[in-house]
């Protein structure tokens, strides 16, 4: 209930018009949606960043989760706790740290000296992707780890004994077993990514606008709540459609019960 009422109000607001001093005046117009459709750039950019960020998290997270599940041995608990600690410490603090590392006194400055021309990773989509992988990696590693831990090592040995190459074993045994973890992890990463606005506003140096940034501007700066609400409604719709579609396509032919979104 506490959740439904605010969302319902957002939907109502999205049809309204901006009051003279900001805020909201009741009305029923489709202007907000109309204007939004003519300028879909932030949505497209957000989707691109969220999708590539999710893929990067899988690529970086999978080997680590595999290592933790099968090879970490006695240090496993310690390594898992070490993975949790940065995740639960301030998002903001850790992102600011990259500002120093990448900044003119850090990597950017170093590369500029090295290559003899201006390099600025900071303020580019690359910096944002880096921040994303850094902040969201644990969300991908945990579900992967949980599924990979169930991987029975005898299956791998059997596959090897039957003469299967490493790659074939991976494709035919490890991957199908890990699939639910990949799906859960991707959803956990993709959802917050679509609404992300702290990382782009810090590491993008305010030059890159994702939906989150646009929403923040609409609500807190220009105080055009109806326009912001319309964007929020579209964002929720995109989320529902894409996540449902993703779960549906990836779990077809497999027991859907394997995948827990929670």
């Amino acid at each position, binding site marked *: 209930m*506490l*959740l*439904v009422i*605010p*969302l319902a*109000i*957002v939907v109502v607001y999205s049809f309204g018009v901006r009051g003279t001093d900001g805020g*909201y005046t009741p009305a029923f117009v489709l202007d907000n949606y109309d204007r939004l459709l003519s300028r879909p750039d932030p949505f497209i950019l957000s989707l691109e960043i969220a999708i590539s960020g999710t893929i990067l998290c899988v690529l970086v997270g999978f*080997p*680590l989760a*595999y*290592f933790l599940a099968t*090879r970490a041995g006695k240090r496993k608990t310690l*390594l*898992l*706790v*070490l*993975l*949790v600690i*940065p*995740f*639960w*410490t*301030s*998002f*903001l*603090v*850790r992102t*600011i*740290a990259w*500002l*120093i*590392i990448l*900044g003119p*006194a850090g990597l950017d400055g170093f590369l500029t000296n090295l290559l003899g021309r201006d390099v600025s990773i900071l303020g580019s989509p690359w910096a944002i992707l880096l921040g994303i992988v*850094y902040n969201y990696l644990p969300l991908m590693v*945990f579900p992967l780890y*949980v599924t990979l831990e169930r991987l029975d090592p005898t299956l791998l040995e059997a596959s*090897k004994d039957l*003469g299967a*190459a490493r790659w074939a074993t991976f494709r035919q045994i490890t991957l199908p077993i890990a699939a639910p973890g990949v799906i*859960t992890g991707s959803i956990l990463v993709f*959802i917050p990514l*679509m*609404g992300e*606005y*702290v990382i782009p506003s*810090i590491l993008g140096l305010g030059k890159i606008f994702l939906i*989150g940034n646009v929403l*923040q501007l609409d*609500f807190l700066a220009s105080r055009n709540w109806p326009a*912001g*609400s319309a964007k*929020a409604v579209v*964002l*929720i719709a995109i*989320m529902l459609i894409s*996540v449902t579609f993703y779960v549906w396509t990836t779990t077809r032919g497999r027991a859907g019960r394997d995948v827990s*979104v*929670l």
Partner: protein
Amino acid sequence: MTARPMRPRVDRWAPVVEGGFRLQAGLVYAFLFLPILVVVVFSFNGTTRYVTDWQGFSLVWYQRALADQTVQAALRNSLVIAFINAILATAFGTMAALALQRVPRRFRIVFDALTFVSIIIPEIVIALATLILFSAFRDWANPWLAFFAGADGRPPKLALGVWSTVAAHVLFNLSLVLLIVRARLSGMDRTLVDASYDLYATPWRTFRQITLPQLLPAIVAGFLLAFTFSFDDYVISSFVAGSTETLPLFVFGQIHQGITPLTNAIAAVMLLVTITILLVGQAVLTRQSRARGERGSTPLGMLEG
């Protein structure tokens, strides 16, 4: 096609692959901790100008941060908000989990669907939705307050601030606590409760002596996670805190003027608070599960996944 003899091949690449796994894991951990290290190290920088211009070890920025009135107020706000939020979210979340155990299945499905939706929605949408809700409520309630308490000419006025931030954080954290407690509940031994009733214990006594001790690890975990979430939260606070300053809001405001060692000192203090809480929580949970003879421990964050 002739059948090949099926014998295990000599795996020449095994050492390379094993080494690769180790290397990758090592690099990822370095990647995860490098920024934290950078913040902490540079907070001890004695420089007066640039953050990265190392001028020797010094605590001067910590002194300045703690002496700064704005920082003091922000720290106080953050701690108060986080503490009240953690208490309320834990209480409501636990109650909701216990109540949900008893509702009919059909109703529970509706609830699960809603939980799914609440997880699908990015935090920022929840933040702006609560902002709209609170503003609407404020605009509606203030005239009434003025009407009832208007006698002395100075009616109380609702505004965005500490309380709206607490309320928004509780809304968000409630489902987190709920999930953790529910997970614990579903793994709980129901026969103990039945036995307690058979022995003529009152519901309250059963709750206090059977249910509560079993749920305690989940409740403690929920409380600590809610606290750290709220203490570190920027997104929701930035929408609903109005002109009230919390530590993350203050730090974010600082970035636009460029990072100073002061920012780093405050950030290091924030890290210290969160990490202390996490380690204490982990220690409490580990000791409890050991005392009960359960194997292994659940790192706090895994409960969330």
